């Protein structure tokens, strides 16, 4: 069975679009408050389509940070997409070949990935384009409106909205940590390391992009060694056949 309706893709993408709008609204405010123009904020959102990566990049860009620092921070923060792309590659219908694979890859975000793999059977390129289009529009529109609103709204309101993106992160992390002890341990180690790089002399001189890389990689390596995930071999093989 193959899902390849552009219209169905658009419909499935609507809830993602709404969620993205509110997050990118906060990103727009943050980008402008950090010193970028409305157009620059929009260009970042349209070409990157990644919340955590964009949030980490803005301080590096505005501080005139190194290109290597920027590149490595994006590589590490967005490395999860590599895994999702591997998984998505097995879900795509045979018609997703050539240029279509290169285009679909652009829109492989956490949420778009999650919705596309929740389909029964394979997904075709028309469906994927629909599923990517609505969230991209929501992400871009939210960024512009947030960036403009950041200049208009009273300071006390924009200050409060600055917390929104962290609220989102907390909403992703806490339920996982609640149901999985290893995940909770991972959060704990990450936070301890992150605070160490903020408050301990010498360590606090490390540029922000590198701090994210060092702490996240260290915490993930520790957890991968201490609590490796269970692999259900049969399921992996069955998935690979699709």
């Amino acid at each position: 069975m193959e899902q390849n309706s552009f219209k169905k893709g658009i419909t499935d993408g609507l809830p993602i679009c709404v969620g993205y709008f509110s997050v990118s609204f906060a990103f727009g405010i943050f980008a402008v408050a950090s010193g970028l123009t409305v157009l620059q904020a929009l260009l970042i959102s349209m070409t990157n389509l990644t919340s955590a990566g964009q949030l980490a990049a803005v301080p590096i860009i505005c501080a005139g940070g190194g290109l290597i620092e920027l590149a490595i921070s994006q590589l590490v923060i967005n490395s999860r997409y590599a895994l999702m792309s591997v998984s998505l590659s097995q879900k795509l219908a045979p018609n997703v070949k050539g240029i279509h694979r290169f285009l679909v890859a652009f829109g492989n975000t956490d949420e778009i990935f999650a919705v596309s793999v929740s389909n029964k059977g394979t997904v075709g390129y028309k469906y994927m384009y629909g599923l990517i289009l609505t969230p991209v529009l929501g992400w871009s529109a939210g960024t512009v409106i947030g960036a403009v609103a950041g200049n208009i709204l009273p300071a006390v309101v924009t200050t409060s909205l600055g917390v929104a993106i962290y609220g989102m992160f907390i909403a992703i992390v806490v339920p996982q940590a609640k149901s999985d002890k290893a995940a909770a341990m991972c959060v704990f180690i990450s936070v301890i390391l992150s605070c160490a790089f903020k408050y301990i002399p010498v360590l606090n001189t490390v540029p922000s992009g590198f701090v994210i890389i060092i702490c996240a990689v260290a915490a993930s390596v520790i957890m991968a060694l201490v609590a490796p995930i269970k692999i259900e071999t049969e399921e992996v093989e069955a998935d690979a056949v699709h």
Partner: protein
Amino acid sequence: MPYTEFFIYLAVMAGVTYLVRMIPLVLVRRKIQNRFVLSFLHYIPIAVLSVMTVPAIFYASSSWLTALVGFVVALIFAYLEKSLVQVAAFSCVAVLIAELLLKYI
């Protein structure tokens, strides 16, 4: 931020992000089997988000006190497994109220 400088940053950022998504989708046809690599990739998202949130959130408003209010409210609503948008919204409203209280009291 001057545009010439900005476009170099933008190209690096968008280029790396795109390559991370594109290369595996175009090249990899088989599933990763290495347990350590899979485990590492499993923990990376939650580790990145944790590192980015704490302590950065405490510097996101005008005082650590109001940010703490937003942080605690976000924790509570996230623990109750409310949607992402709801948690973010309640957290913002809590900070707004705290900011106004701090300003006028």
